[in-house]
């Protein structure tokens, strides 16, 4: 239970920091082969299943990405915007029917077995394609993975599959599991889903439920001289006010994913020794969205949906709820995706008079009490901001004569109510945009999905043209043509107000000044932190 320590990390760290400050400029000190002790990080939840190959979500990646690696990680610059990890190269066939991955040599698992193409083939066919929340869609048409040698894996698809989409999905959907621990077992109940075994720069050490999870340095990591840190501790701090206090008291050195409340950033940014960083989440754009149940009679009328969209003051939302750390949004692809984002989507500015007129026109006049009709509003409990936007939306709708009653649920109950029972009128949701509309965006608009598929069109929205565009784009391997189709798709769904995009937000990192290497890639908080160090 007690952590063995070669020597006290703090003492050594401050010595080194002093030496570095005296003699060496920052760049030079980074090349020194030193290792930096213990990093304590705020964690707001403890996922019971930590396996990123099964649950590709940021809550899991936050811890698991340090232990289990994907084939490639997102990067600022670099080929295809990717940095190689377990794959060193990838080549798509011209017909879109196969992709060949060249795998890294000399990599070993944390239990010292060698990493080979068999691990990739097993993970792809048995885990990503069958069990993973996102992989089930991305690898739907994956037929087989061939392994001509120990360091080559060839993915074969039944139908032409856009390589662009697969590439964009690599950081998220390709966490590789050790075949020797999973083969022939019940994968969902394998103990290695809690005690992770991977190839990453850190090894899983222990978890004390309700207290912390501890990772330790992997001394046999394939990248020489990495990682720098000896340990990472994820300290459970469920209360968001606690993270800021703990940072100031130097009990923790890093709070990612806006663990420090946005309203507190102005203040904490002025505290000496603490820095506020708003980059490093470019690949993790969340969208603040109002989901609409099109089965509800009033909401099936596009005029009513447009009225709802006009009732929302997006600038207020960004300014007040997100304290400026967000951007307004009108369509399903965020602005920071310069490839796919369409600028000419139908926008709905804040215009309560227009909203009132549209509602009158649709045949829902105000009754004596000023109310046109009533709605059930289910704000997702995922973030403070989704809850607060729920409070705001209730007020914004009241101003145009719609009385919304807030129904608050915990996460499982919310998911069941919206995506299985469809027992809602409108919701506040926060879908993630994952760098390509095909990964987790089109599913919000495509019709005919069975009840129970979460974060998908359970809204009763049906437009044959949209369905056709989605289908056509999914089988298009030409990059430019895909972009054209997805732009047409954005135009159509915003015209219909299938759902209302309100804002795009990502997160803020708050860290102690002496932590170097923070936010140096677009998925930084969920990347491997091999180069993170104290200076």
């Amino acid at each position, binding site marked *: 239970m*007690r*952590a*063995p*320590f070669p020597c006290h990390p703090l003492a050594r760290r401050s010595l080194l920091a002093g030496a570095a400050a005296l003699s060496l400029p920052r760049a030079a000190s980074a090349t020194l082969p030193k290792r930096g002790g213990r990093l*304590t990080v705020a964690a707001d939840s403890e996922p*019971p*299943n930590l396996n990123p190959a*099964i649950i590709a979500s940021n809550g899991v990646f936050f811890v698991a990405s340090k232990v289990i690696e994907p084939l490639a990680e997102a990067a600022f610059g670099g080929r295809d915007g990717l940095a190689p990890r377990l794959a060193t190269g990838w080549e798509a066939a011209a017909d879109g029917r196969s992709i060949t991955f060249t795998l890294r040599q000399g990599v070993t698992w944390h239990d010292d077995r060698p990493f080979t193409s068999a691990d990739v083939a097993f993970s792809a066919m048995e885990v990503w394609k069958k*069990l993973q929340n996102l992989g089930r869609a991305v690898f739907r048409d994956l037929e087989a993975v061939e392994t001509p040698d120990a360091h080559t894996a060839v993915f074969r698809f039944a139908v032409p599959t856009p390589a662009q989409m697969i590439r964009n999905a690599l950081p998220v959907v390709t966490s590789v599991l050790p075949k020797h621990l999973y083969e022939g077992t019940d994968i*969902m*109940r394998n103990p290695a889903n809690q005690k992770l075994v991977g190839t990453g720069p850190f090894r899983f050490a222990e978890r*004390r*439920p*309700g*207290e*912390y999870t*501890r990772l330790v340095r992997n001394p046999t990591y394939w990248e020489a001289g990495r990682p720098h840190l000896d*340990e990472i*501790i994820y*300290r*459970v*701090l*469920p*209360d968001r006010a*606690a993270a800021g*206090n*703990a940072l*100031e*008291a130097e*009990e923790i050195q890093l709070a990612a994913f806006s663990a420090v409340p946005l309203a507190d950033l102005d203040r904490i940014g002025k505290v000496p020794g603490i820095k506020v960083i708003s980059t490093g989440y470019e690949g993790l754009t969340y969208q603040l969205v109002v989901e609409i149940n099109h089965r509800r009679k009033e909401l099936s009328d596009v005029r009513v949906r447009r009225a709802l969209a006009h009732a929302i003051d997006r600038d207020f939302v960004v300014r007040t709820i997100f304290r400026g750390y967000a951007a307004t949004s009108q369509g399903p692809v965020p602005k920071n995706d310069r490839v796919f984002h369409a600028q000419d989507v139908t926008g709905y500015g804040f215009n309560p008079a227009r909203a009132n007129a549209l509602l009158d026109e649709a045949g829902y006049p105000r009754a004596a009490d000023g109310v046109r009709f009533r709605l059930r509003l289910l704000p997702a409990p995922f973030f403070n901001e989704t809850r607060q936007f729920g409070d705001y939306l209730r007020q914004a709708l009241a101003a145009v004569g719609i009385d919304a009653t807030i129904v608050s649920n*915990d*996460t*499982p*109950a919310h998911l069941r109510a919206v995506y299985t029972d469809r027992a809602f009128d409108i919701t506040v949701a926060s879908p993630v945009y994952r760098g390509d509309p095909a990964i987790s965006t089109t599913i919000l608009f495509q019709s005919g999905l069975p009840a*129970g598929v979460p974060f998908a069109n359970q809204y009763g929205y049906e437009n044959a043209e949209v369905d056709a565009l989605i289908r056509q784009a999914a089988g298009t391997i030409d990059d430019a043509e895909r972009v054209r189709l997805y732009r047409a798709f954005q135009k159509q769904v915003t015209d219909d107000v299938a759902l209302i995009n309100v804002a795009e937000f990502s997160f803020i990192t708050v860290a102690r000044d002496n932590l170097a290497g923070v936010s140096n890639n677009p998925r930084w908080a969920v990347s491997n932190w091999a180069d993170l160090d104290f200076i």
Partner: protein
Amino acid sequence: MRRALALLRRRVLGVVPVFALVVLGAFLLLEAAPGDAVDAYLAGIGGGDAAQVASLRAEWGLDGGPLPRLIAYVSALLRLDLGWSSAFQRPVLEVVLERLPNTLLLMGMATLLALSLGSLLGIVCGARPGSLRDRALSLTAIAIYAMPGFWLGLVLIVAFSVELRWLPSGGIETVASGLSGLDRATDIARHLVLPVLSLGLVYMALYLRLMRDGMAELWSQDFVRAARARGMTGTRLALRHVARNALLPVVTMLGLQSAAMLGGSVVIESVFAIPGLGRLASEAVSRRDTPLLLGVVLLSAVVVMLVNMLVDLAYALLDPRVGSGTGGSGAGG
């Protein structure tokens, strides 16, 4: 000693029907909750097909009517199987037992603080009932008693851990500190100061009141008057005769308050991020894990019963007047 054992045996026997009722209540709540253990289990592992559902239901004895289900529940309990926690993906018993020591520590320290400080101030007040000192202390105590513990906790955090930096703001100990022995005990003690104050101070008023009122009443009783006539005065009289006799109801109150303390720890543990039973209860509610919540409820009931038994025993040993005839007023909490 024999008397004490007889009392203990009678108390244990008396507790059995009460605990049976608690179990029955827990079962009824479980029945009323939407979904059963199989649903919870499958939701956690990502769903299953109809055949798997049916076979699991049969295996866990959940396919019959209410009576067979009750029998299945009770027999599982007898095997110390409290069910499966969907939120933690582990057996409930494991999860609750892991959290119990922290809660007992918090409760024990808070009780100690409330009891000692409360009795002490109660003696100070009761030594001269009606004096200015008495009135001022009593009023302060009642004002603290009116404070919500969680609010007091927040105020203490701002003052002592954020502004003054004297004490840690949460947790039960420095995470993965590598400390052991005395160093670790000191570390835990530092973490417990604020939560114990928030929980204990609120209940302190109760003991103060009890002690003070008991003493005020005793002053007019014959044996005290007699002692005074014998020439005993001041502090000595107050302590030796009056305070000692007023202590007995205070001991009874200990048993009565144990349930309230456990309830209070739910909020305090949430404020201070202490991984104990209380925070587990509120996590169970917000993650809709009814078996886990009922596990906490059952374990708390056991704790309360044990505390009451100990209190009764202590009472019997302290006060020779408690014979084998009466059941003891601290019965059941």
